[in-house]
């Protein structure tokens, strides 16, 4: 599979270590259709290729948006790219947040740190069809106020009457007047009905593990929780073997999993 050339429209810094790329197909075609939760393989010419979740609106796929941290050679090179530069895209790959299947339910979107990026397309899709869902709650935790992603959007969402947004930070800095505490503390009090709610959870594995426990304490069963997993990926099409998680390939059986399906592995070490 060859990477398709895309042009960078915009690169902007979100927080100290996170940035967003907005890209369009270089040949002027319509761009790729994707489902929320899916990812692309992004190729920087001569440097390498990495998997990054798509974080834009599935309803407007002409511009593809990716939000990522600059942590390795490839992402650091990506951070230096400018409008008009070419980047290679293979995708979209992977399973999706089940936004179509959970109509009628309350939805609790639980994001930790950069985990808000792969969940954002699900939020867009839900808000685009808001009438199909019950209560919608967004719980978001980061390390500090400076690490809050998509601030402007969060403020807009918070001002809606049909969406509850709760944000917490691990440590307060400066004049932060909001919640302080780890994200799991938001779950016991979040306004949703555990008998008809679905949780979409994304963030570091520890955060997902403890969030699952908190949702369980509120009376939700494992089959109403979804998580997004991450492993080393090279080919994204099931041939290189790197992304195996038990017998599942994260690239094709994931990254989104219904929690009951992977519960037996989730608590084991070095899987």
């Amino acid at each position, binding site marked *: 599979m060859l990477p398709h050339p895309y042009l960078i429209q915009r690169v902007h810094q979100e927080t100290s270590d996170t940035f967003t790329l907005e890209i369009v197909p270089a040949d002027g075609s319509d761009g790729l259709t994707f489902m929320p939760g899916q990812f692309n393989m992004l190729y920087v010419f001569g440097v390498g290729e990495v998997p990054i979740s798509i974080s834009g609106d599935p309803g407007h796929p002409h511009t593809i948006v990716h939000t990522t941290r600059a942590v390795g050679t490839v992402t650091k090179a990506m951070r230096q790219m400018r409008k008009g530069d070419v980047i290679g895209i293979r995708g979209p790959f992977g399973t999706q947040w089940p936004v179509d299947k959970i109509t009628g339910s309350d939805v609790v979107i639980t994001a930790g740190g950069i985990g808000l990026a792969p969940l954002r397309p699900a939020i867009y899709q839900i808000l685009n069809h808001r009438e199909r869902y019950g209560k919608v709650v967004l719980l978001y935790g980061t390390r500090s106020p400076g690490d809050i992603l998509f601030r402007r959007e969060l403020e807009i969402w918070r001002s809606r009457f049909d969406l509850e947004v709760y944000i917490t930070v691990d440590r307060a800095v400066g004049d932060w007047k909001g919640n302080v505490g780890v994200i799991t503390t938001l779950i016991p*009090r979040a306004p949703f009905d555990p008998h008809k709610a679905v949780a979409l959870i994304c963030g570091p594995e520890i955060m997902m593990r403890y969030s699952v426990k908190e949702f369980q304490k509120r009376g939700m069963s494992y089959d109403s929780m979804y998580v997004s997993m991450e492993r080393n990926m090279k080919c994204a099409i099931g041939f290189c073997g790197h992304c195996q998680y038990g017998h599942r390939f994260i690239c094709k059986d994931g990254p989104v999993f219904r929690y009951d399906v992977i519960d037996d592995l989730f608590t084991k070490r070095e899987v």
Partner: protein
Amino acid sequence: MENLESLLEQHPFVKGLRKEHVRLLSGCTANARFDEGKFIFRENQVAEHFYILREGKVALEIYAPDRGPIVIDTLGADDILGWSWLIPPYHWKFDARVIEGTRALVLDGKCLRKKCEDDHDLGYELLKRFASIVEQRLEATRIQLLDIYGITS
């Protein structure tokens, strides 16, 4: 006028207590309101009460001379605030500052301590509940300390 006993009974903290224990508790309970910006208690003050928050938001803070007040936890409706009244030397370890106008049930800890000495059953029931709260806070604090969002080196 709201019936304090019925307000207490509604709270999960009180669930499972025998009728006479609930009555004992309500005898030590009063209603209170705290305005935004006020301190409910301050570090080193004698701890003689605890609070069942009904409405509003309270920040637990430590004051650092070079950095000013640092918020370490935020509590809201239905949270229990304060356990230092139960454990010697009965002094508050942190400041509790009101962020959003708060209404709470205030329980007289000093009075309760005496009642617990007289009635060990009551004492055991209260300690069981507080142990659970302390455990939840400790677990949350440990995860907070991990800095799970950071880039591990």
